[in-house]
């Protein structure tokens, strides 16, 4: 079996500049794989970020997020 590449696994990513730190994506994620950063973005929000593993690509965080461009979810 070929080795798994990055694009074989689902992931989510947050555009930390567009995130408003509302934490609704955290509440929505069935896998609890989203967290809030200690750092502030340039609009003074603590942005969400993907902790890096076990995202299933379900997309629920995307729909829970009010910002059009803050979350991108990839599902192979």
């Amino acid at each position, binding site marked *: 079996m070929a080795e798994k590449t990055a694009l074989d696994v689902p992931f989510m990513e947050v555009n930390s500049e567009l995130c408003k730190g509302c*934490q609704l994506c*955290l*509440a929505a994620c069935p896998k609890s794989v989203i967290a809030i950063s200690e750092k502030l973005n340039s609009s003074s*929000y603590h942005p969400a970020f993907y902790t890096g593993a076990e995202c299933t690509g379900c*997309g629920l965080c995307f*729909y829970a*997020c009010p910002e*059009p461009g803050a*979350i*991108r979810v990839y599902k192979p």
Partner: protein
Amino acid sequence: MKTYEKSAGFFPVFERKSGPAKDATHYCPGCGHGNVHKMIAEALNDLGLIDRSVFVSPVGCSVFGYYYFNCGNFQAAHGRAPAVATAVKRTNPQAIVISYQGDGDLAAIGTAETIHTANRGENICVFFVNNAIYGMTGGQMAPTTMIGQRSTTTPHGRIEALHGNPIRMAEMLATLPAPTYIERVAIGDSKHIMKARKAIRKALTIQAEGRGYSFVEIVSACPTGWKMDPVHSRDWLIEEMLKVFPLGVFKDESENRDENSWLRRCDAYDPAKVDEYLDRLKSTLGDAAPVALTNDLHCKFAGFGGQGILTLGLLLSQIGMRAGQHVSWFPAYGPEMRGGTANCSVNVCGGRIGTPLVDTPNLLVVMNQPSLDAFADQVIDGGTIIIDSTIVEGRLDSTRLRQVLIPATAIADEVGTAKVANVVVLGALVAATDCFPREFCEDTLRAAIKKRSLVDMNIDAFGRGYEFVKNAR
């Protein structure tokens, strides 16, 4: 493979938004408007409708819909979005038209438009974002505010006896026969959100298929107005709001209505048809070659109701129209049929007329004293003021205006009835301005006066008014 990302239903960059941050919305953190926007943009794009969609935004936090949606956009006056949407849809039946509204907009100031648009079964989608508060103006009570809920106008909480109960718009509209589909959904937990997404897609599909009116009420959070953080807002929404605003389908006739069976259309605006109508109107006055106009007339005629002020305006307009000039006539009168005040604005111009209102006339006719007091100052320098000196006692003491005095009512009385004083004034007006030849005006009057037995008396009245002014010169 699937990616969930910003839909092409949105502009790639929100250029119309002021300030920096042209990729983020103007909404507060956790605001439900953003979720609803995302679902609408996605649906319009996925269903291939975006290029023929028109988004009508309300007054409320979503007033800036045109920043975001990559389609046609209107911003309507507060509460009037469904009326604007009706006009857009009827004149462009192929367009997908969305009336997007908040609870203050839809259920307070716009209640009448909401009900009647639904009752007519317009083939549009109404997306109603119910966040139980006036978000934009800082958190006042809305018709949908919950009993006990604090707002800036209900600081001790909404009280039934004082403020009434929260209004359930979906249930109310579902009692009407015309709507096709009415559902209430919520931006609550993920299950609610996915159902909301489905409802929005369904409503748009119904419209695209011409199956009629859809109303999707979306219970949504306003963390700022509610003074709660976003996550608690969604919890409160689920635990408290959904008790009062139960989710579900209240009406679904989509299966029973045939495709394109529910189009309310009116023919698209066609300038040729307007011309045709005006020509027909003109031909009732008898054919005439165009007659030149010396100076554009911007007139205000004012007096008591019953003096024929409005008719005076109509007659001058008809003369101008028959002469091939551009004309407008715009009446304004009080609630009384007689004895109240009346005035009208009339433009007779060689070129196109922008507004039918005349605020600064170059010609004023006053047939009572209050009108002289009210309007004399508005006449432009060098303008003319014609005064019925039988009735109006006042005179101008300035030389700023040209003053033409004519005892119009007394002359009319001699002719046979004071009722033709307005036509005496018309004669005086034509004489004072030399706007059109006397014979041309008399010919037009003959055609315009419908009651044959009155034609001679009116021509007599016109002639006396005309001569009075010419002889006084």
